[in-house]
């Protein structure tokens, strides 16, 4: 083999895209911290934003990076929410272990449903994921499951102990806000690690060309199931977080709307770049809230209108548009 010099190796290393943590990654968290001090009125809204950011990030991992066209991601969210609620009701009110349990249930859901779903591609995956989520939604409402899920009444009346045994959840949602921010930061870092790993490169390869991937000797279905489990665990954490901060788990945490909204968030922000999930979820929740405050009956028009504009003028999403422009203006080098 020819002798390689350092420069050659480094030049080739530059050919591998990096998604390292940089100062840009601190911006959303800085923004969130500023909001705490200057817009305390909106803390509960901010908490909702963060739950959705965590959920959208998990979907981005599966859909944006892995090309798994999931329209039933709410299955993970809901399983996580019920797991965290039941855990708080019957086992312990400690929040962090509750999230861990939710994550495990999410991963397990991925492990069970993944092999059913992931042998297919495209539209079949869309329908299968949708079907599984719908079945879970119906199942939670059956009379047989009512003693466990609470049926249409949902789970309520559970308490969540102080975080780290120190910070109790207050009426103004301050603790809930910081707690959610911490969870989002955790989810974001996990996503970054996965995306940077050898597995993360394989995931992007499977999205681009699964046949070539098989012809490199990779068991594509098995890798996709792994991805589905990781994404499912993170989605379930978002669901668990939602259960813990609202202290309520209803059937709506398994409703199709949650899946659909997350998809809209990814389209708005831009899929396959993590930041898109953050921006998309923030814009979506903030826009819905403001629009509903202005016109409580027709607010969906605003969301629909923005979605149409985004698809027409920013098909790569808001973050994609920004990345495009900053490249064109020479701010960043590819």
């Amino acid at each position: 083999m020819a002798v390689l010099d350092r420069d050659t190796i480094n030049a080739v290393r530059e050919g591998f895209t990096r998604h390292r943590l940089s100062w840009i990654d601190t911006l959303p968290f800085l923004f969130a911290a500023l909001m705490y001090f200057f817009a305390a009125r909106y803390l509960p809204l901010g908490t909702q934003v963060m739950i959705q950011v965590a959920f959208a990030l998990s979907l981005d991992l599966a859909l944006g990076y892995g090309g798994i066209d999931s329209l039933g991601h709410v299955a993970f969210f809901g399983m996580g929410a019920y797991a965290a609620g039941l855990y708080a009701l019957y086992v312990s009110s400690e929040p962090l272990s509750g999230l861990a349990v939710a994550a495990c249930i999410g991963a397990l859901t991925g492990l069970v449903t993944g092999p059913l779903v992931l042998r297919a591609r495209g539209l079949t995956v869309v329908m299968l994921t949708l079907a599984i989520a719908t079945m879970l939604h119906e199942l939670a409402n059956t009379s047989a499951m009512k003693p466990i899920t609470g049926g249409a009444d949902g789970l309520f009346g559970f308490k969540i102990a102080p975080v780290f045994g120190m910070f109790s959840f207050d009426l103004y949602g301050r603790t809930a806000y910081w707690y959610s921010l911490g969870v989002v930061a955790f989810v974001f870092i996990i996503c970054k690690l996965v995306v940077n790993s050898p597995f993360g490169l394989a995931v992007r390869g499977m999205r681009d060309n699964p046949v070539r991937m098989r012809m490199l000797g990779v068991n594509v279905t098995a890798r996709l199931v792994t991805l589905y489990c990781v994404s499912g665990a993170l989605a379930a954490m978002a669901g668990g977080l939602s259960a813990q901060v609202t202290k309520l788990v209803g059937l709506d945490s398994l409703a199709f709307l949650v899946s659909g909204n997350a998809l809209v968030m990814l389209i708005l922000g831009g899929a396959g770049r993590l930041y898109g999930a953050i921006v998309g979820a923030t814009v979506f929740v903030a826009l819905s809230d403001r629009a509903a405050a202005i016109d409580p009956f027709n607010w969906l028009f605003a969301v629909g209108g923005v979605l149409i504009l985004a698809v027409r003028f920013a098909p790569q999403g808001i973050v994609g548009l920004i990345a495009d422009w900053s490249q064109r203006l020479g701010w960043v080098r590819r």
Partner: protein
Amino acid sequence: MAAPALAIEGISKNFGGLRVSRDISLSLPVGARHALIGPNGAGKTTLVNLISGLLQPSSGRIALDGVDITNLAPERRVGLGLARTFQISSLFPSLTVAENVGLAFEARFGLDRRLWGRVRSRPEIVEGTAALLQSLGLLELARKRVADLPYGQRRLVEIALVLALEPKTLLLDEPAAGLAVSDRGALLDLLLRLPEALTILVIEHDMSLVFRLAQRITVLVEGQVMTEGSVADIRADPRVRDVYLGTRSHG
């Protein structure tokens, strides 16, 4: 005597009533350079799909180094040392050339299941990619996205991809298809420099390439082996001229 690198025994493939491959047998000793020629629709690509496992034969068996692989999943066959290229380059368009080749190294070393660590800091991936790209003269392309490459270069990148797997047997499905004449020279150079121990089965319409690369040639017509022989035999065979060479205008 050592087992042949690739042995095909009485392979047939039917799509409903359509018999695409009929009782094809083929044996390639280790290090063979074997070409498969025949008019369009003769079932050449079908045969490559059968060998690589993307299609299941209706009957017959396939062995790699004496191991029966007839019912093995395609990815398992790759693990046994079988690699292939496609008639239309099969790459990862949104990834860079380095990432494309790096993925092949990753797969070969079983790193694709690793959720921790960074691709950039795995020496076996980065240095392997660098060495391979350098030896193929493709270093300049490392940072380019495959989608931005001209077609000729994509063909070379696909060959880099399969070489990264260090296969024992390589299937090349029309490597020169769609290449400009100038690019064909570079491709032939590359193919002639491949390790001698590598067994190669190549489908190709470019006869000058076939005659320079191959030692033996099989002519496939309507899913059947019409004849097999050395390059000289095939060149002299009037039937081959009739069904194949004569009907094709050279340009």
